[in-house]
């Protein structure tokens, strides 16, 4: 970590940055009763502090305007923010966070607001820092295989800028046409192609970050693999709890020589799942393997007329990419395996336009479900790939038992399920039933040794499920990391952890010191 303020080599300084506060503040934090409301300031105080530091129009206070920021892509949770700051310079972010830190007012960072776990859900007595106006592509270099971008730059724009140079940005969430790089970093976004190419964390080389005390620091260096702790690894996927990214240097990946997309129709998801396992078992690592079930196909068809095989109970979408010879070989294998698993129809797209047409159905699927159901929950869970068939069967049993329709769209290659639980919020009891089914699906994932989220993050939505997956000790240990960056608990509070604690607070469930403290492994700041 280096600080932009100009203390790159001062070890003491670095330590204090790591601990997230200057010694005086630390003392104060320890003195004050943790979490006492009286210790929090108000957004009005932050507003006052920002006068003169930010352009007038960058700070929103009009209630109608504030209300448009009340939710992200998960509209089930809504909180009108106390204040919205539209940052158009990294300094605006730093000034805002500093003011928040001074008054111990919570802040939440927001990019394009497309997240599906309520990670950017505002705080009523806090500040929403919006990075969508920070949208300059500073550098796109084929030679260096990197792009330096602002957090508000749209994911797809990075690839569009890199394509003429023969490169692209690999992480491709379904919302890539609108989601921001800052959001990708916060959520460690994946996408259909992360089976082969990895998640955002595998593609971030360096980050400029505003820490929760308002300091601007740089994590990582231009050269790969800086010594010391992997702070980028800690930051990516921290869901806005460790600070706000204000610039990212990301890896660009060479465009493959050849890409082929296979669309195979099957009678049911079982067969599609079996074909998936067989493809992976054959040693092929496809760029993507996706499955959609009948209900998801129906929705996508209604939305974008993607022309998927008629009468299919499931479609399997396999993309292979790489050198031409390798692609030709893998393609033949994939076709053979699909046929062996009784594919009812097989199509191979070679041209970019045909591939895009196949992907369009898949990428629109979530929002397209809006066409066949008034409301729906997008669930996100992971199971070991080999458990796919069993989990899908159990899921359809749950669906039948509870009388709640569930559409399935998933990254089959890495067992990342996206069940879409359909309901009508206008009908009494349906919302509760749908939420119940949604929770049962997560339990099912955990039972099978999986996870409650693959790529959408924990956010507001899944904090309550964390204890199903982790012990209290696990959660407390995670909070130690958070406290190292954010001793006052002002960075996106209420997300990830079911019972947020301020640093120095003794977790109630423990009689004595934290087990990690007792053994001398960790110290609570």
């Amino acid at each position: 970590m280096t600080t932009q303020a100009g203390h790159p080599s001062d070890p003491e300084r670095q330590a204090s940055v790591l601990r997230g506060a200057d010694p005086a503040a630390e003392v104060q934090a320890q003195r004050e009763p943790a979490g006492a409301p009286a210790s929090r300031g108000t957004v009005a105080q932050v507003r006052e502090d920002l006068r003169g530091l930010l352009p007038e129009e960058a700070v929103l206070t009009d209630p109608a305007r504030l209300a448009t920021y009340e939710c992200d892509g998960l509209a089930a949770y809504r909180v009108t923010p106390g204040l919205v700051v539209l940052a158009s310079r990294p300094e605006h972010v730093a000034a805002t966070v500093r003011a928040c830190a001074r008054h111990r007012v919570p802040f939440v960072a927001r990019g394009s607001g497309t997240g599906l776990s309520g990670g950017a859900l505002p705080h009523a007595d806090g500040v929403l820092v919006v990075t969508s106006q920070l949208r300059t592509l500073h550098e796109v270099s084929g030679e260096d295989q990197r792009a330096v971008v602002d957090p508000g730059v749209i994911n797809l724009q990075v690839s569009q800028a890199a394509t003429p140079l023969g490169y692209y940005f690999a992480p491709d969430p379904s919302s890539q046409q609108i989601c921001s790089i800052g959001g990708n970093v916060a959520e460690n976004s994946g996408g259909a192609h992360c089976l082969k190419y990895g998640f955002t964390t595998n593609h971030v080389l360096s980050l400029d970050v505003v820490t929760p005390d308002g300091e601007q620091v740089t994590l990582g260096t231009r050269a790969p693999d800086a010594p010391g702790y992997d702070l980028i690894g800690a930051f990516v996927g921290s869901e806005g709890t460790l600070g706000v990214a204000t610039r990212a240097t990301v890896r660009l990946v060479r465009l493959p020589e050849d890409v082929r997309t296979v669309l195979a129709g099957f009678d049911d998801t079982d067969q599609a799942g079996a074909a998936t396992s067989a493809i992976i078992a054959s040693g092929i690592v496809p760029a993507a393997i996706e499955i959609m079930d009948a209900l998801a196909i129906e929705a996508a068809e209604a939305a974008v007329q993607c022309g998927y095989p008629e009468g299919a109970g499931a479609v399997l979408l396999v993309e292979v990419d790489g050198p031409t010879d390798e692609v030709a070989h893998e393609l033949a294998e994939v076709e053979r395996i699909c046929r062996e698993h009784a594919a009812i129809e097989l199509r191979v797209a070679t041209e970019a336009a045909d591939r895009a047409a196949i992907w369009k159905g898949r990428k629109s699927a979530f929002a397209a479900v809006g066409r066949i159901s008034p409301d729906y929950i997008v669930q996100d869970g992971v199971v070991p790939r080999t458990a796919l068939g069993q989990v899908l069967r159990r899921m359809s049993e749950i669906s039948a038992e509870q009388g709640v329709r569930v559409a399935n769209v998933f990254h089959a290659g890495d067992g990342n399920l996206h069940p879409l639980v359909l309901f009508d919020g206008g009908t009494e009891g349906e919302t509760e039933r749908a939420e119940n089914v949604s929770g049962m699906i997560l339990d099912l994932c955990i039972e099978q040794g999986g996870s409650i989220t693959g790529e959408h993050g924990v956010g507001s939505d899944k904090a309550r499920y964390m204890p199903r997956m982790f012990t209290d000790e696990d959660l407390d240990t995670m909070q130690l990391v958070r406290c190292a960056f954010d001793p006052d608990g002002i960075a996106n509070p209420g997300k990830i952890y079911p019972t947020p604690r301020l640093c120095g607070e003794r977790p109630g469930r423990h009689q004595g010191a934290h087990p990690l403290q007792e053994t001398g492994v960790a110290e609570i700041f």
Partner: protein
Amino acid sequence: MAHHQVRLGIPGVRGADQPAFDSHRPPSPELIDDCVHCGFCLTTCPTYALWGEEMDSPRGRIHLMKTGLEGAPLSESMVGHFDACLGCMACVTSCPSGVQYDRLIEQTRAQVERRYQRSAPDRALRAAIFTLFPYPRRLRVLRGPLRLAQRLGADRALQRSRLLEKLSPQLAAMQSLAPRLGRPERVAEHTPAVGERRAVVGMLTGCVQREFFPGVNAATARVLAAEGCDVVAPAGQGCCGALSTHTGREEEGQRFARAVIDTFTDAGVDYVVVNSAGCGSAMKEYVHLLSDDPGYAERARAFSARVRDFSEIIAELGPVAPRHPVGGTDAQGVPVPVVTAYHDACHLGHAQGIRQQPRALLSAVPGMQLREIPDAEICCGSAGVYNILNPEPARELGDRKAANVAATGAQLLVTANPGCMMQVAQALERAGRPIRMAHTAQVLDASIRGVRVP
């Protein structure tokens, strides 16, 4: 022509602290509920592209409508965000959930116009626009002095002096948009089909199209006739009401719509053909505009079903007239390539879904080399009278469009809407990259007649 007069019981203006919307056609809660807040509309929204603010995105505006329905007052800021919408409908194209934002913004604008007290200068400007533009005869009166001023260079002197801009940026925008005027060219009331008659079509001659781009109408009639259409252009026809309807002047729009329906019903035609994207889109929407009018609801439905864009009808009938090169031929008789960029007018592409037809028709012209414009889905900033009411964002969008058009290296820009023509021409001129412009009909006309594009 006796206009069918009905009182639809439309309420008048109310106090500022009342809830934003009254019960007469408020933005529909059912349509609002279709929005799942996914944000896929954001990147294609011109104002979001400019400002990066949620409340100036379709998703944010729908949210504002919702708060309005829940009782929030029609505040100045709320109205400002509705007014800032260009109505380009790019969001309708990009929405995977099928949200009918077009209907929502139209319902909202009508409420705003009725219930919100605008400032005196704004009211005066709007009054001026709507006393002038929807009336071809009044526009014609303007032609003489305008043409004279252009011949004398007085218009450019006025622009250089920036006098008008100091007085009113809106008036300056209006003045600078006026195209170079050529000779008036009238379309005959009846143009017989050449060869076998395949359809009888009525032709909307429009207001701005008729007076400022008469060459486009003449070309349209000639191409239609060459493709086997009897073309009827009723002399008494008036404005289609597009500008009024798209600006929330509901009653005025309905009045124009009824008259147009009457005119073309009397003409006894199979189709009503329109060469202006905004007009065609509005006429296909009469079915919604007049749905509450017992005397016209059914007629509007039948009428809207017969409306076709120029390129749509030619593609539907299947072109038969032989095409010739429009850029001449070289010594070997090979057509000289004409590098052409096709600009999708929003009300053709987004509102009517017509993208493929004009491209196919243009590509079939010998020597034509079509280039796609980057960020084609983003509006040029014209948007009806938007560029007069909101000159600053319109200018910025025009500059972006001009840069993207210039990047194609095209020598000819083809589009199918008079507003886009004026807006993009002006922006390209400002950028020092003037380019020849033509309507799809003019290119086809030149090709059929074997002459160069005007």
